[in-house]
């Protein structure tokens, strides 16, 4: 499984981990990861520690998650980015939409 989702016990936080390449082939599994929650979390964490590459469709998927999580009021942190991955996020200035750590 390249995409894994873990929801905290009280359901308030959802952590999604992506292993390997984050591109269009992960579209469905990434969607499932945040759509299949019983309780709508108020905090999302995207852990890219094991993500090796990010393409433009991955950026699009992050925008979909942001929309799902409330758009401008969404609370999404992107954590543990490798330098190459972080660079792609910063080129598109996604730090204006997400908290990148």
């Amino acid at each position: 499984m390249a995409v894994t989702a873990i929801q905290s016990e009280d359901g308030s936080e959802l952590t999604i981990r992506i292993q390997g390449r984050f591109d269009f082939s992960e579209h469905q599994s990434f969607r499932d990861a945040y759509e299949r929650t019983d309780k709508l979390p108020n905090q999302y964490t995207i852990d890219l520690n094991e993500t090796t590459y990010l393409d433009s469709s991955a950026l699009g998927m992050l925008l979909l998650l942001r929309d799902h999580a409330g758009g401008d009021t969404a609370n999404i942190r992107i954590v543990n980015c490798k330098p190459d991955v972080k660079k792609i996020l910063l080129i598109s200035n996604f730090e204006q939409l997400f908290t990148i750590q």
Partner: protein
Amino acid sequence: MELAEGSIKILVADDSETDRMILRSLVLKQGHRVVTAEDGQQAVELFILERPQLVLLDVLMPVMSGYEAARQIKQLAGEELVPVIFLTSLKDAQSLAECLDAGGDDFLSKPYSPLILQAKINAFNRMRMMHHTLQVQRDKIAGHNKRLLQEQAFAKEIFDKVAHSGCLNAHNLQHLQSPYAMFNGDVLIAARKPSGGMLVFLGDFAGHGLPAAIGAMPLAEIFYHMVAKGFSMPEILSEVNSKMKQVLPVSGFCCGGMVDIDFDSKVMKVWIGGLPDCYLYRTKTKTLDVLTSKWLPLGILSADKFDTGYEIIEVDYDDRLYLWSDGVIEAQDDQQHFFGEERLKAVFTNNEEPDQLFNEIKESVFSFIGEPTDDLSMIEISMVPRDSFSDKPVPVEASTIRGARNWSASFEFRPETLQSYNPIPLILHCLMQVPGVNLHSGRLYTILAELYSNALEHGVLGMDSSLKASLHGFTQYYAEREHRLQQLKEGFIRFWLEHKIEPQGGVLVITVADSGPGFNYQKMMNRITEDTNYHGRGVNLLRSFCRRVEYSEVGNQVTIEYAWNNELDSAHKGHH
């Protein structure tokens, strides 16, 4: 009796009458129809006449052998599968092999079992039908594919006209686009501004192929229309962003870079949203300035959150700005290594002849990757003198509603408007209602822009134009202008427009007044006659276009008269 496959017509060819009769009754009993031939020649003739679906052939017959008949029948059948089964008393392997070599599908040695013969007829009939179904489906798919390719080629023609067009062939531009598919997600468009400047946009839609290319259509349309109507870069970006937000799915967006080039003041205004670092090569010093993406791609933020900022860069003639999609640094070789920034920068370091830079980048990327696997676009924009363009900027499209022939109008713009709105396109649009005037749109735009910026900057905002002359003057000047504009609490600019018909054409009288303190125009007019290099307030420019330029009041009001001759224009046009 198995009749699931339906009744077919079977040709039986045997020179022995007894054998013919036995076969005939067997086949009839199975529910099929039969035609019979006495030799090979007759078999071929009957095949042409009756078109049977299956053939039972004796090998040894007079006139023409079964082998030869099989060859001819197979050739006549063409792509259709007509199973040929040999019935023979020959038993040696050589003869049996020859049955198949001649095009036969199977053989049965005499005496044969009627049961086996019936089973073979059924089996071959099933195969025949499968073959037929396959061919029908194949033809259908081939037909669909052919139509799809034709439609794509047609769509690509439209797409290329819209998305890769404008003045991309101008002598100060060099561009490259390698389509990954028939359509790519990259847009490259350029257009001359009515004022003589140029706007260039390079965009990269998320995704590939047709889905990505579709978004390019409205983008390009908005770009060309707004540039031609004299809108500024922030206004165009803002409009494009809103449109992209409206038409693209949530996960879709367009990374891009837009550059507004002013050939008179040698200034480039640059907006980059989501493109990798772009380079400015300063030819004199052989140095690279790196321009980083500072804005979000288009189509993500709603109109009220979209930031229409840009960087102002002062450059010299022959300096070059490079914009590219991520396909350049992310170009991969067969070991999946990226081309990367190091290799890209090395091209600039090793360059000796700046005119060759573009080709050297291209060659360096292509020799690295072999075959491009991703959309890859780049453009080089050189700063050149304005008068190096021989072609005239394209006039604003003539209004399709004609007939404003004798009229006047007035506008007053107040602080809230002056802070956020550029009224020139509105006024220009008004003027374009006048028949015949669209051929003069470039000059009228320049006149209006000059009058407006004088009234705003020197009148309402009280700016001193000498600031522009210093080294980083332009940057400072624009920053100060923006600052004062945001602080603006009172003031106005008024436009009076009047159009009158003259015998061969018409005249526009434009008066602009502002709330500023005015200036000593007497003194300035005297200096113009003494010193033709004096460029204060662009009066020389106005005087070269207009038959009358007159200041009045305390110097905060100016009236110009612009006249044209329709007959001269049409003679001029016909000459080209």
